[in-house]
């Protein structure tokens, strides 16, 4: 399970097949390479399996930055 912000960033980078340095909290999702419709589905799977959360597609669409993604998991990601 992912329980920290740093672990979340690392998992997101791995999911997107990016170097960890390319994925920070201030990264804009639209500028992240590989953040496409397939990545969104992969992210929903990641959230379900590693954060025990079913993310609604309607919530994801409102996210502009990686920090917005982190805000989807206030109880799970501490520190």
């Amino acid at each position, binding site marked *: 399970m992912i329980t920290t912000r740093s672990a979340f960033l690392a998992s997101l980078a791995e999911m997107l097949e990016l170097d960890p340095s390319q994925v920070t909290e201030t990264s804009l999702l639209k500028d992240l390479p590989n953040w496409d*419709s*397939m990545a*969104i*589905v*992969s992210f*929903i*799977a990641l959230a*379900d*399996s590693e954060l025990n959360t*079913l*993310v*609604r*597609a*309607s919530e*994801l669409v409102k996210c502009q930055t990686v920090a917005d993604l982190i805000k989807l998991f206030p109880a799970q990601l501490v520190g």
Partner: protein
Amino acid sequence: MADVSIVGAGIRGVASAVPQRTEGLAELAAAFGDADTRKLLANTGVQTRHVGRPDQCASDLGCAAAQTLLQELHWDPASVDALLFVSQTFDYLLPATSCCLHGRLGLSKNCAAFDVGLGCSGYVYGLWIAASLMKSGLKRILLLAGDTIPKAVAALDRSAKPLFGEAGTATALEADPEALLHFSLGTDGPGWPHLIIPAGAFRKRPDAETRMPMQAQDGNIRSAEDLSMNGAEIFTFTIREVPPLLNRILAQSGFKREEVDYFVFHQANKFMLDYLAKRMALPSQKVPLSLGEFGNTSSASIPLTLQHCLRSELSQKPTKLVMAGFGVGLSWGAAAGVVGPLCLPEIQYLA
């Protein structure tokens, strides 16, 4: 709650037909480029799809399958009491395609015929309806299920073009006091917009505007008369509803998870099926996949998978199966039973 067990409807055989013509990675690369095509393949798992001539309908494929099945079972067409046609790609807005098929198959005037307008969940609904009709006194039922969704997909829609194929199937059911099938069915009506062809029927009649391809919110180019699919919503729906559905059908049937020989799912896409299998702790060898060769064939995908992947086993011995279809509607259904041995002719490839 639509969780029921029905005695008396035995499945006797399944036949399938697909167009001989295929589309594959070369066609996708021409439309989307090599790099995107590799990503699409990784997500969908679909190497080839069978896509027929523009005038080749799901009813043509279903009819060929049904004719073969009637012959192999030595059933007189006049002995069939009801014909169901499950599809969302009908020949006409009206009459019902099942009536057209009734004529083509030479069935009796005393035979009932009607269409069932469901896709991904359609085959399970079809089995449930057929079993229920059998309980009301019918002796022999033909259940045809098939779709030609590629004909409703825009050429440059990368969310749908790589995914869908065409197929038609026929399942023969016969009254059998020893047969027992279990069902669990459900609907998420508010999810209706997530998989839709918005125009062309009666909510929005077709016109020059509905035919115009436009760039959609997801970046794909399609018209209002083309299929539109919100992959993220469908995936969330699947994770939310299918694991509980599996638990309900196992409870309804009394089957233990480890006793089930195969879990035959609607062939939505490989990423989704792999994730579901992992989520529900199902060994991969118990989750057969036919979508690599045939793609997502909508209402045909479960029977096609039975034939393509399990023909040897199902034709020789009783097999404990759970079947589950989920998607367009949003609708879902699971069926469980000990099935076989079945008459399972080879898949037909039609010119």
